[in-house]
């Protein structure tokens, strides 16, 4: 069996400046904090960060913003992190705001091998700028395109050695779809279990999507 377990340092060695990085979580809930801390500490910059939001200055993706690791963010919301707004207004950070449902669907779309999808969300708003409109049966839609990344950093509650993941409560959020949509998928596990430690019927992300597993525990 291929050994997917690495140290946080080994995992983050795969992230290079300028890469696009998807990061799971919703306002920091379900975000892999250890992986983020290592990214900040190592000083990898010019990242394009894809996530639901920029969380808070001291939490989740927020720490990467405060640490000036991003040149661009693709998110649905930045209101909880004043530093994101400041960097945007100063021209230091490019912010691409995407409706949350469209963001989730675009990530899944990439993971599922689709070329795009049609949605009414955003019609008649600034969201439609630069997008193709397609009419089906008299109803107008925006054509939204897939969104993928070089690396996905996600968080699982239980992860077995094959990379099968079980998430917990609202910490699930964007993690399962990001696991499908990046070239390299790194999961931070609250608990690493043996194969069989998650019932096959209850696996939420099949291990085939996962390249690297790191422990989120403090004792490393």
């Amino acid at each position: 069996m291929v050994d997917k377990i690495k140290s946080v340092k080994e995992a983050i060695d795969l992230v290079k400046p300028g890469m696009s990085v998807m990061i799971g979580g919703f306002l920091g809930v379900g975000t892999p904090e250890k992986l983020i801390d290592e990214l900040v500490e190592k000083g990898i910059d010019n990242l394009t960060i894809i996530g639901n939001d920029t969380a808070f200055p001291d939490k989740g993706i927020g720490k990467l913003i405060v640490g000036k690791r991003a040149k661009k963010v693709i998110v649905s919301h930045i209101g909880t992190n004043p530093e994101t707004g400041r960097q945007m207004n100063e021209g230091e950070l490019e912010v691409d705001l995407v409706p949350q449902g469209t963001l989730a669907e675009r990530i899944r779309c990439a993971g599922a091998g689709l070329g795009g999808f049609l949605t009414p969300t955003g019609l008649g708003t600034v969201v439609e700028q630069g997008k193709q409109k397609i009419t089906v049966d008299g109803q107008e839609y925006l054509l939204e395109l897939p969104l993928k990344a070089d690396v996905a950093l996600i968080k699982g509650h239980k992860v077995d050695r094959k990379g099968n993941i079980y998430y917990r409560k609202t910490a699930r959020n964007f993690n399962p779809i990001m696991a499908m949509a990046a070239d390299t998928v790194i999961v931070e596990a609250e608990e690493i279990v043996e194969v069989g430690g998650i019932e096959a019927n209850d696996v939420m992300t099949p291990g085939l999507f996962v390249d690297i597993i790191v422990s989120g525990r403090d004792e490393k």
Partner: protein
Amino acid sequence: MIESKERRREIIVKRVAQEFRDGDVVNLGIGLPTLVANYLPEGIDITLQSENGFVGMGPAPEPGGEDPDLTNAGAQPVTALDGAAFFDSCMSFSIIRGGHVDATVLGALQVDKKGNLANWMIPGKMVPGMGGAMDLVVGAKKVILAMEHTAKGQPKILNECTLPLTAKEQVNLIVTDMGVIEVTDRGLVLKEIAPDTAVDEVVEATEAPLIIAEDLKVMEV
């Protein structure tokens, strides 16, 4: 016009709470809309959907009972009721965008006579992002605005929104501290009026033309 701000807010949430049928799936925005859950009529049981990934949201936990993996869409600790179900963001928005949410209740910066809504940014001042609002307003079966009728004395119900839109022609009902307004093909219809409030007052506080319902009622709040 009611003087007490507290009473004005109470009027709004009490009246919105009367809009639901037993079994409805409802998404409540952060802030004033959240309070609606406290005023449900007897015998009306609704299921709250939270766009960060579950249905069956319950109230805040007792102090000390917070679970860091269980929050609402504002990152505040909440509880899950019996029969709740957790899911990922894609399923969450499939529920929202697929028309499986019976009603969503949101605040507004501006709304206009066509039911256009602006509630997500003020250019140059406040750009928090739309979060899930655009999806909710387009996807929910019924869009209810819970808002004060005016802001600093200025009308918020306009002929045409001047701020960037959240969605085009999606609002169904506007509930304010002055009345209940339905968005119809004919325009905005004032269906109910707040207690101790005159029709002239409402018309005055509204930029958009109001059609006064023939059977205008007083809000039961």
